């Protein structure tokens, strides 16, 4: 108890310095929390967009080599019906079954859409039946991308983005019209199918909004004259189980010519990884900046405190305290100050985040189509993790700051002028 009182009274003795450092720590730590809360929101935004809106799923199963070569030789790199059955059998394993929420087959193709006397190049994605309805009201979309939900209307026919509707000169809410879709089959013959234009969707990606179309899987297979598919997209009930599920899938499908990727890999989630590496780089820069300011504040406070209390250090050492024990006394002061700063910062983090979130500020992230609300993620785990990091940094910094002075011999310390002169 005496050490705590000692540390507290020493902090109190240097009120101005303590307050200055305390403010620096509070601003720094609050900044770190808000920055982390924002990065977390962007992460959830981009991952929800990737997993649900673009239907990549948490995990994708593809034929080996298809990521690199499927566009050059689709016939070879698509999954045959036998291979699909093989994968479907593995997905029946109890552990996988209990963790998987939904499985979709996915097939894609470039094509030409004709309607209302206009022709548009499109990129079609086709999924298993009911998938549009599955994602339309998915809790994750409702939670993270509520503003984009209005851009989705599920259908059994062809679905286009609002941008393509506009290019066709057709109103999204008007009566369905007939459309024709043409492309080359996998054998190289020109083929076409007719369907109704009934749905509307969004990719959430600015660069894909003027080409993205969706249709039912059987229809696209008919257009391509194949029963093959490109990918199995697997949606999990609990995202934290992703590594375990991938491990089980890799084990069960080992040596059968398939590749398994998670949504946060470059192979199937390039948009996610690209966006997050950019955001994380910026975040890391600011994070480092804030951490450095905090470290320098602590070093500055400690150095001034140590210089002022040189004689105290000498006295303690003459009484038998070793360097480590004296360092700990100074560290205790820094940790106490950091602890107070963490409490105030945490309150500020909750208050500021709640306030910002309540404002519902519309915000369009770079590369996205449509806006989302600018929000800060409020999380105890973010706060606790950062508190541990900053306490550790404080402890380490205090040790480094004390080291130089403690290496003086005791006679020199006692002869230096301190507060007891």
């Amino acid at each position, binding site marked *: 108890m005496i050490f705590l009182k000692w540390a507290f009274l020493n902090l109190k003795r240097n009120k101005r310095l303590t307050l200055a450092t305390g403010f620096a720590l509070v601003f720094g730590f609050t900044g770190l929390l808000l920055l982390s809360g924002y990065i977390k929101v962007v992460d959830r935004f981009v991952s929800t967009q990737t997993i649900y809106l673009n239907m990549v799923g948490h995990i994708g199963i593809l034929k080996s080599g298809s990521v690199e070569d499927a566009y050059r030789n689709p016939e070879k790199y698509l999954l045959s019906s036998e291979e699909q059955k093989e994968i479907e059998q593995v997905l029946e394993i109890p552990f996988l079954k209990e963790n998987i929420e939904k499985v979709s087959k996915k097939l894609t193709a470039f094509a030409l859409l004709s309607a209302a006397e206009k022709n548009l190049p499109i990129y079609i994605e086709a999924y298993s039946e009911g998938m549009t309805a599955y994602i339309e009201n998915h809790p994750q979309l409702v939670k993270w991308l509520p503003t984009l939900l209005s851009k989705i209307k599920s259908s059994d026919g062809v679905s286009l983005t609002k941008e393509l509707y506009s290019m066709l000169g057709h109103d999204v809410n008007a009566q369905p019209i007939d459309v024709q879709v043409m492309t080359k089959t996998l054998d190289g013959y020109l083929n076409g199918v007719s369907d109704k234009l009934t749905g509307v969707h969004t990719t959430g990606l600015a660069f894909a909004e003027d080409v993205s179309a969706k249709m039912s899987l059987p229809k696209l297979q008919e257009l391509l004259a194949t029963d093959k598919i490109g990918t199995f997209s697997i949606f999990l009930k609990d995202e934290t189980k992703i590594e375990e599920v991938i491990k089980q899938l890799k084990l069960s499908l080992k040596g059968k010519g398939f590749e398994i990727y998670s949504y946060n890999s470059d192979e199937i989630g390039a948009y996610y990884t690209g966006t997050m590496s950019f955001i994380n780089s910026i975040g890391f820069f600011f994070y480092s900046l804030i951490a450095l300011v905090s470290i320098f504040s602590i070093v500055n406070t400690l150095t001034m405190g140590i210089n002022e209390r040189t004689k105290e250090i000498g006295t*303690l*050492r*003459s009484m*038998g*305290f*070793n*360097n480590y024990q004296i360092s700990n006394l100074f560290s205790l002061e820094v940790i106490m100050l950091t602890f107070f700063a963490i409490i105030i910062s945490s309150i500020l983090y909750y208050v500021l985040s709640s306030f910002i979130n309540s404002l519902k500020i519309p915000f369009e992230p770079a590369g996205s189509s449509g806006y989302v609300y600018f929000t800060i993620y409020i999380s105890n785990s973010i706060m606790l993790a950062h508190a541990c990091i900053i306490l550790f940094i404080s402890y380490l910094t205090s040790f480094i700051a004390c080291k130089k002075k403690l290496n003086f011999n005791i006679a020199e310390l*006692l002869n230096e002028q301190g507060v007891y002169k």
Partner: protein
Amino acid sequence: MEQLITILKLKKKYPLGDTVIEALKGIDLKIYKGDFTAIVGASGSGKSTLLNLIGTIDDPDDGEVYFKDINIFKLNENEKAKFRNEKIGFIFQSFNLIPVLNVLENVKIPLLLNKKLSEQQRTDKAIESLEEVGLKDFVYSTPNKLSGGQRQRVAIARALVNNPEFIIADEPTANLDSKTTMNVIDLMLKLNKEKGVTFLFSTHDEKLMDRVSKIIHIKDGLIL
């Protein structure tokens, strides 16, 4: 009498700009248990350097100091720290009390390193030590509320609290008026006689000479 400190050919030099000051030029000295010894000399004669070396708070250039049969300069830093904590008490000219702690807490400081003691035992020992110096009624006062003489008494209580065999005092009365000086010296003498604590202190106050059992005159780094 039991020999407590044996000093052999102790030398210490200090760099001062481009020159080197020879603070001690080869001191030989013996201190016995129960001695009440004053080291007397002019300013810069080497008194403080000698006390610092005996107290292991400075390192010599040459020579040896034995505490009983322990060569104290052969000890490593942690052993020296333990030695200072258990065997020696220090009293400083400017008291060196911790201003943010009260009297009781100041006296308890050396006991904090003894993990075998409970908090209550530390408090009891500190109060006992404060009783010996006549400051029982000031345990919860802070040092800035005390007079110079009272502060030095607190410093003496702190030096005594671990029951050291030996107390080193570097000009303990230099910051005190003559009446308080006599009180402090009387207190040190009383502790020397009643508890058998060996005192070695530096002074240039001639009035104290008739009260000490042994006087060592030092001049230009040599004992006269």
